[in-house]
């Protein structure tokens, strides 16, 4: 199922207020004394106590290093670690949990693909196709690959609505044809909120014999993923963006590809045998998990996924679209605000990025902080995108399951204040003493 074709969720009411009780950090006041409105979820989300407890519980009751241990603690840890892998596997609807590899994060996962599959399969004159809305994590590893092997990195341009122009994309496929070895694209833009047609793009790549990598960092937290339906070759996401711990992410890969790729990091666990002459790699998934893995992080990620699937990703997404709709509607009344990305909330995830003529994004964010509202300012690790928009930075509010309509209203009110305070009035100030 494409993320753009979400089915209507059951009509049960969604109550963010009651969910907030699960998140200890949201119960405290902001430094300003006001209730904390955390709208920086695209950068990283907060954790429910279910996840924090899962981590503590591991350390307090059954922690040991995993895999080869015989003793009870090690068996328990291994068991829970592998259970987390199965949770992720179900979450992605993977054919086998062997296709689910734990990595340090989205960034580490993409670099793994670039340095293994990339070094093995991409050469001089080949093309890596990206979109202009990619996060640096899905740009820099390909620039580095280009430095190593001499391939070319091509960016599909966007239209005025913050979407890839399908005609121009078709033209790129036409132009480069089978030279395109990989189409690596984000399923949802971390700046524009744009939801891309994953399944359609994967099919298009398949028709040209190209591989696909789907950056699901902004998708996994908000929408159901089905790798068997989407059929990407690789799909990656991070734990910390879906209520999970830092220090962990997931690299999904199709078995056939993972088996044909050389291993990446070398060390313990990823080997079948080591001699003074060389080594033989282990089977999946160990082959790509060198050294002591992020054990409690994987267990915490499993708990986060259980938490989110209990609530239901469709319901979460629907709630976020409602918040975005409200934000768009209110911001339409504030002059001087330039909303970037799709103008119709139905085409978007719960991300609202904007610029205010004559006001620096960092001043906007700083002012919001004085109102207890956490938003992010800057290029959001998407400098090429900002350049293409003619901006050096933007301010971004990004929503999650625990955000409320009231927070959206406080946010828009703060936007109004910012304009009043900072937008150039054209007046001369009195001379300073």
């Amino acid at each position, binding site marked *: 199922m494409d993320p753009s074709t979400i089915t209507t969720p059951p009509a049960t009411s969604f109550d963010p207020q009651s969910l907030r009780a699960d998140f200890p950090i949201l119960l405290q006041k902001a430094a300003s004394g006001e209730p904390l409105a955390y709208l920086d979820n695209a950068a990283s989300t907060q954790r429910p106590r279910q996840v924090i407890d899962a981590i503590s519980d591991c350390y307090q009751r059954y922690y040991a290093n995993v895999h*080869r241990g015989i003793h009870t603690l090690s068996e328990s840890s*291994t068991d829970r670690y592998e259970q987390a892998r199965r949770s992720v596997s179900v979450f992605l609807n993977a054919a086998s949990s062997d296709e689910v590899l734990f990595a340090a994060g989205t960034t580490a996962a993409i670099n793994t693909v670039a340095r293994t599959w990339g070094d093995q399969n991409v050469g001089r004159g080949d093309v890596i196709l990206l979109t202009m809305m990619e996060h640096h994590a899905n740009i820099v590893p390909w620039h580095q690959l280009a430095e190593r092997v001499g391939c070319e990195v091509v960016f599909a341009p966007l239209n005025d609505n913050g979407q890839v122009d399908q005609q121009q994309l078709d033209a790129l496929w036409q132009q480069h044809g089978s030279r395109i070895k990989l189409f690596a694209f984000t399923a949802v833009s971390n700046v524009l909120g744009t939801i891309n047609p994953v399944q359609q793009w994967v099919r298009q790549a398949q028709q040209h014999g190209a591989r696909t990598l789907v950056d699901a960092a902004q998708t996994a937290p908000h929408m159901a993923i089905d790798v068997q339906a989407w059929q990407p070759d690789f799909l990656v996401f991070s734990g910390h963006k879906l209520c999970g711990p830092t220090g962990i992410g997931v690299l999904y890969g199709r078995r056939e590809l993972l088996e044909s790729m050389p291993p990446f990091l070398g060390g313990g666990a990823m080997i079948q*045998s080591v001699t003074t002459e060389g080594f033989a790699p282990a*089977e999946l998934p160990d082959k790509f998990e060198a050294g002591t893995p992020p054990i409690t992080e994987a267990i915490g990620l499993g708990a986060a996924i259980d938490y989110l699937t209990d609530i239901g990703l469709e319901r979460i997404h629907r709630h976020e679209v409602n918040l975005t709709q409200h934000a768009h509607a209110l911001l339409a009344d504030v002059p001087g605000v330039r909303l970037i990305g799709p103008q119709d909330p139905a085409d978007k995830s719960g991300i609202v990025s904007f610029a205010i003529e004559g006001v620096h994004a960092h001043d906007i964010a700083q002012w919001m902080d004085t109102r207890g509202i956490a938003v992010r300012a800057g290029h959001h690790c998407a400098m090429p995108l900002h350049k293409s928009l003619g901006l050096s930075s933007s301010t971004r509010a990004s929503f999650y399951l625990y955000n409320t309509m009231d927070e959206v209203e406080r946010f828009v009110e703060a936007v109004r204040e910012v304009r009043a305070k900072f937008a150039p009035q054209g007046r001369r100030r009195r001379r300073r003493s």
Partner: protein
Amino acid sequence: MPSEQDIYEEHVLDHYEDPYHRGQCDTATHAEEGNNPLCGDEIRVELRLDGEGKIKEAWFDGKGCVISQASASMLMERIEGMTPEELKEFSATEMLELFGPQLTPNRQKCCLLSWRVVQRALHSPLDEDDDSATFGGPSLGEES
């Protein structure tokens, strides 16, 4: 949690110290090797199938822990007289039951080592390519 103290019960130690058909089968028609990737222990199984394909003799050799050695001994004793079909139907669960004491997942791999090798031995007649010369034999990790 299985009560691990029971793993090494007398019946298991009997098979460990005085195994059934440990050694080579001079008239073997089929043979196969395999290892446990977790520990590197290897086991070789040699079978003699009669005209109808029935297992007339089953022998094992190798090194490993008490569980792997005792379970191999039990398995050799058990499968003699079986048809290939009967052997194929002899499941992992039945193997674990045959062994007796409850095992944690890691130790189940020890117990199932010879069982896996036996399943593959049926497809490895001795006149054909014998891949026993490859690095430590094929790893069976992917199937576990």
